[in-house]
Structures are given as C-alpha cells and as structure tokens.
C-alpha cells in the first residue's frame, strides 16, 4: 500500500485510452465500474477533443457482482460493434474488473465478431499509464501488421504519438517536414492518427522514427525484429539532437543528410548578448525520461545553463537517465512521489526548474521559475498556436518557452541596483508577467525584517556542522535578489561548512561570493 497525493501517471488503461483515442475506427471496450468514465474528460476537456473517446465502459455495479458480470461485457462489446462499426477493437479491464477476472479477451472471442478483437493484459496494480500505452500499441501492431514488400521510394513510419500527448500534434508536422526535406515520405503515423487499416500497412516502410520511446519502444523493437525495420534512437528535440537525427536518418537510408535551417533562430537568440544573463543559471530537470534527457542537452549545450539535477517519474527510463546523469555529474532522481521531487528541488535551490505541471506548482510554492517540458499535461499544454518541441521550430519554441518565466537581462540588473524600490523590488516578480505587483510598504525599516526569520533561513541545513547566520549576514542575504538568493545561501553554507565555520557573518557571505565568482 502506497500513500499517494498526486500522481504523474494514470493507470495503464488510461494509456490504452490514449492509444485508442488517437486512432480512427478503433474502439476500446473496457470492463469497468461506473465512475471510470471520468477519463473521458481528460480528452474532451484537457485536450479539447471534439468527439468522445471511442471507449465503451461496461459499467458494472455492486448488485451485478453476485450474479454474472461476463454477460455485461459481452452485451457491451456487441452493442459497441453494432453502433460504431469499428475496423478493430481492443478489449480489456480496468483495475476493478481485473479483480473479478472475467477475461474480456476470451469473452470477446466467443462473440465471433467479424473484426479483430485484440485482448489487452494491463496489470493495474503493478504498472502505469506509459506502460499501458506502449503495451497497447505493441499488441495492436502485433495483431494487425504483417511483413510486407517495402515501398519503392524511401518511406518511414512515425511511431509514438497518442491522444493527450505533450505536443504530439505539432511534433508530427515538424518531423514530417524534416523527413520531406530529405526526400523521405511518411508511410504511416501511429497510433495517432492511424486507423487499423493503416496499421496493417506499417510493414511497407523502410524504417521507423521512434518519436516517443515511452509509448512505442516495444512496437519499434518488434517491427525491427519482424519486419526488418531499423528505428531511430535520436529524439529530435533541440538543435544538436535535430542535427544528429538528420545524420542518423541519412545513415539508415543511405541518403545525403539535409537540414533546412533557414527558419532556425534559436542558436542566434542564445548567442546574442541579451542572453548573457542565461549563463550558468542552475537548472533542475524533471519529467518523462525522454524529454528530460533531450532537455538536459539543450539546457547545457544550447542555453548555457548549469544542470544541477535531473530525474524522471517513469521507471522504464531509469537506467537510461541514471547513465545520462552520470555524464552531467549529478545523481538522477527516479521517483513518482512529487513530495520527494519537491524535497530535492528545495535542497538544490536551482534558479530554474524545467519540469511538468507538478513542478510548476512546486516552483510557485518555492518562488522558483519553471517552464514545462513534459507530460503529465494540463489544458495549457494544448495551445491553439503551432507549438512543437521537435525539429527546427521546436528549438525556437523551446527558447521562447524557457526564457519566458525568467526575469530578463537588464531587469535583473535593475533589481540588483534598486532592490529597495517600493514598486520595483524582487518580490514583485518579473515585470512582463501579468499578475499585480505586490507593492512594498514604504517606511517599513530593516528592523522589522531582521526580527522575523525568513522561511528559507529557518530550514534546518543538513551540513555536518550546525551553521548559524548572524543577523547582519542574514540581512545582507535578503538584499540579494530572490532569483539568486537560494544559490547564494547554499554556496555560502557549503563554503562555511567546508572550512568548519559555524557562524556566517557578512564577511563569510562575501568571501563565499568571491570564491564562487565566475
């Protein structure tokens, strides 16, 4: 039994729903009690889909349990076929139905439907949403796709996009463009927006572009084995990764690498003097393994940030991320407990978080700016405008998105210079954000500030020596703008504890500042 407040991933049948909802002419018959239909609103509200997810819920109730729930499943499956006439069905159980062991797969088989009914075994008490999506797509491919003669021209399948995916809609467009520039046609994009008849044609492509390992890696491996289709290992998020992706694709197909960079603005934006203020900003990354790995590279190599920590919530990617973290000289945090993530962020006191909607809230609480790089998604992650993460435009979008939460270059200096200004002080936040600035009351002197210990100083520090901030040093620390205060505090304490100093004075603060100057 595990105590959980918020979760990064839903149950595995929600992963299956993401696959089914992304597809056309596919129907999911889910053996589930009343209430599990809540998952429909993820698609109709968060993603603003204009149709219901193609899911029929059997809706069994307590009074059915004593009798026969199997007939409910059979009736629902039959009715769903009659009404929706899908090309194929997936059938399975949600967590409760798993306990009553009705075997939806076997039951569906007895119906003798004229379409394939693909059984799903998704262990709800062990696995989670990403596994559910990956396994569902794999089963669909295994049942519907067959080895085929390859197309005359070089073609690729794009695999991995699903309903409710983080920017999947726009990534498809961008990656299709990258391939088109190299003269490669897209054969099938799956699971979203493919139909079962499209799935049947997967085998005729020359290779697969694995866009999201979270949702399609098992299928990619299967198609490599069964259809002789190699798949790409580079996820083209960021400038460097996009260039690597083009090289990898060229190598797979034996074509000349070709990348149209005429629309690429990110490297110049990053190099222009205005971006000097980004230099060495300490960032912490958290999300799904794929996005974190890609964004770590962008953060360090393309934005000039310092990566101080990273982690992911999907343990399927734990090994990959642990290895990567080693290269960055940090320890990977693999957890799906957001309280643990919050503790790590507090400990590291980064100047910026690149995370999920959960970290955005953590950032709000701790006063650390945050940009969202990964699912779980929120209605804000489905913007009306074109907003990919992959390819050339993805890199441009990422630059804008990450810079937005920060206090910008000259404003940062002004805050340092005039930090006592009553309306232009650091608690007011970045001026380009729409919220109402909190005016500081004039006439409140330093005396009142030194009386109360600020929460960040009240936190017990975990160093080997008990370190005390002397009042004058504490006051001085408060003069440092909020966006670097955490770093200054941490550096000073590390500096002090390394030297066995247990009282921090103003001098200690500035000695530490000099020590860490760069």
């Amino acid at each position, binding site marked *: *039994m*595990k*105590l*959980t*407040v*918020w*979760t990064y*991933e*839903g*149950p595995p*049948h*929600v992963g299956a729903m993401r696959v089914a909802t992304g597809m056309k002419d596919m129907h999911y018959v889910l053996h589930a*009690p*009343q*209430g*599990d*239909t*809540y*998952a*429909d*609103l*993820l698609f*109709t*509200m*968060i993603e*603003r*889909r*204009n*149709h*219901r997810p193609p899911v*029929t*819920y*059997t*809706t*069994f*109730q*307590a009074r*059915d*349990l004593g009798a026969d729930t199997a007939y409910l499943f059979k009736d*629902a499956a039959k*009715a769903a076929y009659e*009404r929706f006439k899908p090309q194929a069905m997936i059938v399975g159980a*949600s*967590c*409760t139905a798993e*306990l*009553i062991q009705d075997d939806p797969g076997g039951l569906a088989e007895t119906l003798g439907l004229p379409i394939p009914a693909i059984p799903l075994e998704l*262990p*709800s*008490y*062990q696995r*989670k949403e990403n596994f559910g999506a990956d396994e569902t797509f794999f089963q669909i491919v295994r049942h519907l796709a067959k080895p085929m003669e390859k197309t005359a021209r070089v073609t690729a399948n794009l695999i991995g996009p699903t309903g409710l995916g983080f920017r999947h809609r726009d990534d498809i467009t961008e990656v299709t463009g990258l391939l088109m520039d190299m003269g490669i046609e897209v054969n099938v994009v799956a699971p979203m927006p493919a139909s079962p008849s499209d799935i049947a044609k997967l085998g005729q492509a020359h290779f697969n572009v694995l866009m999201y390992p979270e949702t399609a890696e098992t299928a990619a491996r299967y198609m490599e084995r069964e259809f002789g289709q190699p798949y790409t290992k580079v996820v083209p998020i960021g400038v460097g990764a996009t260039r690597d992706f083009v090289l990898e694709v060229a190598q797979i197909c034996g074509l000349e690498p070709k990348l149209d960079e005429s629309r690429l603005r990110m490297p110049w934006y990053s190099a222009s003097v205005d971006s000097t203020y980004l230099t060495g900003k300490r960032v912490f990354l958290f999300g799904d393994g794929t996005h974190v790995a890609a964004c770590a590279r962008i953060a360090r190599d393309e934005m000039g940030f310092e990566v101080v920590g990273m982690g992911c919530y999907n343990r399927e990617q734990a090994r990959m991320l642990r290895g990567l973290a080693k290269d960055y000289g940090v320890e990977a945090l693999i957890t799906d407990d957001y309280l643990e993530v919050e503790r790590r962020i507090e400990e590291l006191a980064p100047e910026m978080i690149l995370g999920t*909607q*959960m970290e955005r*809230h*953590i950032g*709000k*609480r701790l006063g650390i700016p945050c940009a969202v790089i990964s699912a779980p998604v929120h*209605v804000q992650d489905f913007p009306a405008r074109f907003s990919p993460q992959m390819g050339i435009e993805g890199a441009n979008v990422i630059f804008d998105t990450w810079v937005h939460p920060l206090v910008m270059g000259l404003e940062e200096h002004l805050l340092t210079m005039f930090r006592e200004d009553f309306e232009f002080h650091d608690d007011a936040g970045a001026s380009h954000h729409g919220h109402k600035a909190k005016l500081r009351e004039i006439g409140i002197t330093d005396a009142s500030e030194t009386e109360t210990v600020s929460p960040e100083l009240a936190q017990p520090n975990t160093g080997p020596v008990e370190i005390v901030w002397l009042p004058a040093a504490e006051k001085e620390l408060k003069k440092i703008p909020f966006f670097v205060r955490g770093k200054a505090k941490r550096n000073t304490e590390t500096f002090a504890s390394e030297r066995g100093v247990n009282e921090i004075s103003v001098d200690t603060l500035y000695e530490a500042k000099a020590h860490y100057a760069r």
Partner: protein
Amino acid sequence: MTEQFAPPPSRGCSNTPVLKERGQHEVFCGLTGIIWLHRKMQDAFFLVVGSRTCAHLLQSAAGVMIFAEPRFATAILEETDLAGMADAQQELDRVVSELLARRPDIKQLFLVGSCPSEVIKLDLAKAAERMSAQFAPNVRVLSYSGSGIETTFTQGEDACLAAMVPVLPQTDARELLLVGALPDVVEEQAVGLLEAMGIGPIRVLPASRVNDEYGIGPNTLYALTQPFLTDTHEALQRRHATYIAAPFPFGEEGTTAWLRAIADQFGVSEAKFAEVTDAPRARARKAVAQASEALRGKSVFFFPDSQLEIPLARFLTRECGMEAVEVGTPFIHRAVMSSDLDLLAEGPTIAEGQDVDKQLDRCRDARPDLTVCGLGLANPLEAEGLTTKWAIELVFTPVHFYEQAGDLAGLFSRAVRRRDLLKLEAAE
C-alpha cells in the same frame, strides 16, 4: 408579498412513468465528493483506499490541483496487498499511523472505500473501529464507501454524512438541523434568514469542525439542502428525527417553499415570514428575470449527473420560462423528491439511470436549445452544434437560496448568450 408563483401544475411528474435505463453511465463515482467535502470540514482528512485510478480521478475530476497540501490522499493497493487480507489491514494501520503522525491537526479521518477495496472486501468499518479506539480521543475514524459500484457522484457526500449520523450524541433538545455541505456564504444566508424568523438553535451537518458538533434525537427537525442526501435522510430517520419535506431551495420559489415548510414547523407567523423574506424575494425575482431573458421559450435536456436535475428542471421551467424535454437523473428517491416532482409540469421524459449512447440519440433527435451534461459529453456535443452547460459547475458554485437565484439562472443563460455572441464569419 403576495403569492406570485404560477399555480402548481394540475398534473406534475410524480405519476409520470419513468424511463429506467441501464448501460454505460457517463457519471463520476462518489469519490469525487471529497473535492468539496475536504474543504468544508476543516479538521478532516479523507483517505481513499483504492487504486491508481482513484488517485488519478481525484486529481483530474475537478481539474484542480490544490497544492497547499490537500486533506485527502489515496492509499494505493499494490499487488502484495491483494494477496492476503491480513496484510492489507496491517498495511492500512501503517499508512494511517504515518499520516496522523505527520498531520497532528487532523481530528477526524474518513477511510473511504473504492471499487477495488469493495471487491476484495477489505473491511474498512472494522479498520475504522480499531483505529478509533487506538487514536481516541484525538482522532475520530469513520468509514464510508465512495465506490463507483455503489455510488454516483454526489452520493459520495451522502454516504459520508450518513456515516456521521450514528456517532452524533443523543439529545432531547428541539433543534433545527440543516443537512448538506454548502458553501459558507450560502449556509450563512440560510441560517441568517431562519434566525431572523426566530428559529433556533440551528445546527449544520457537516459541521466545519468536529468540536462544533451537537446531539440529535426525537425532537430534532431536519431539512435537506441537497436532493442527493437520501441515505443521510434514512440515517436521521433511524435516530427518530423529523424530516421537513419541501422542494429544494433553488430559485425564488424553491427557497420560499423550503423556508415556509420550516417556518410552519416552528410556528412562524405569516407576517414575520413576509417581513424576513419579502425583500430578498423581490431581489431574487428581479435577478432571475434579468438573467433568464435568454432562456425564455427555450428547451432544455438534462443528462444524469449530480441528482440536482429534477429540482433544477423545476426552477428552469417555472421561473425561467424554459421547456424541459428530458430530465435524466442517476436515481429517483421519492421520499425526498416528490415535492419537486409535483411542481414539475407533466411533459418531459423522466429518465433514471443511463445508457449514454441511446440517450445521446434522443438528445440529437430533440435538438434542445440547451443540454445540461457532464464534462465528457460537453465539447463533443458543442462540436455537433448543441449548446451545453457542464453540470459539475452547478455543484461547485453557490447556487442555493435567494441571493444566488440570479447566478443560477445566469449559469444556464451564459451558455446560450455565448453562442449568440460569437461571430466568426467574414463581414462581407
């Protein structure tokens, strides 16, 4: 103020044959009520014993992530818990001990059953009894089920309140009990009106803190503020309290009838009643008249959701000039619903339960001017050209009593006005 309501219909819907359906139910389960209950009861914690699905529902259903550490959580059952029952009880003890050690401010803990915990027959009542003994007197532990196999959406609140009734002390005092978790502003208005008539003492279930509780007994009179509190109603009957039957306090008419039923029990004079209610009645009437302009003569179709459908159909037809096509509701409990059914003129289909695809067919055929439905259906129906109002907002917004009557009409009319406002065609 003289009576200005339309006369009751000669034939209400009480005897209308009910279309009973079973099939796919597009509704929430009872766990959803925790979203508002944990805000209402400020010293309570709700621990769902369930699956990852339950946790996912709680964070998705309301679309709100209350990161100021919410007073609810899920103890997620894992493979090992499903193996043997003894383990699950021990595990629960461990989780609860950890939780209470971390949150000493918690005075009442609700163990909330879910579909999986019900199916594996994890005895939460027994667990609650054991824990109550262990943690008394600091923490009271109760249990109820919010599982989807037993409860629909708002029935979760009903199950929670019903679980609280047996542990209230016995009293012989003649007191009025208002039953239902209302937003504070609305609750204060109701209490204010009743106190102005000289009625008291007035108690509220749920009280916002466990220490504010009171006794209950044969001299207790109670009125329901929400139509879904049927188990709580039965629990109060078992304590020999007296039910004050009335239409539910939505709109000017519902509020007046509800207040009058209570006033009659406490011997309030006509003059006193008029003195207290005339002014807010006039305000409510004016506000409803303005807010419902866009609704007059329009048709409305209710999908089942919160159990508020019948009283709201009564409000929309009698006070806002709408015509009801179908009123779908998760279940009909006549003991508490008959006053509203009597006032709802014969005509609409009254449907209980749901087979969502068949109901969608009926809705598409009827092409109502306004469809009241859940979040899973609203955007798809909008995309088909129907105007919708999401039902969940009716549960999360202050809509009871006089001062909110205009807001209640406004919730419906905004959807209609919006469609008229949007003009995206080229000017030429």
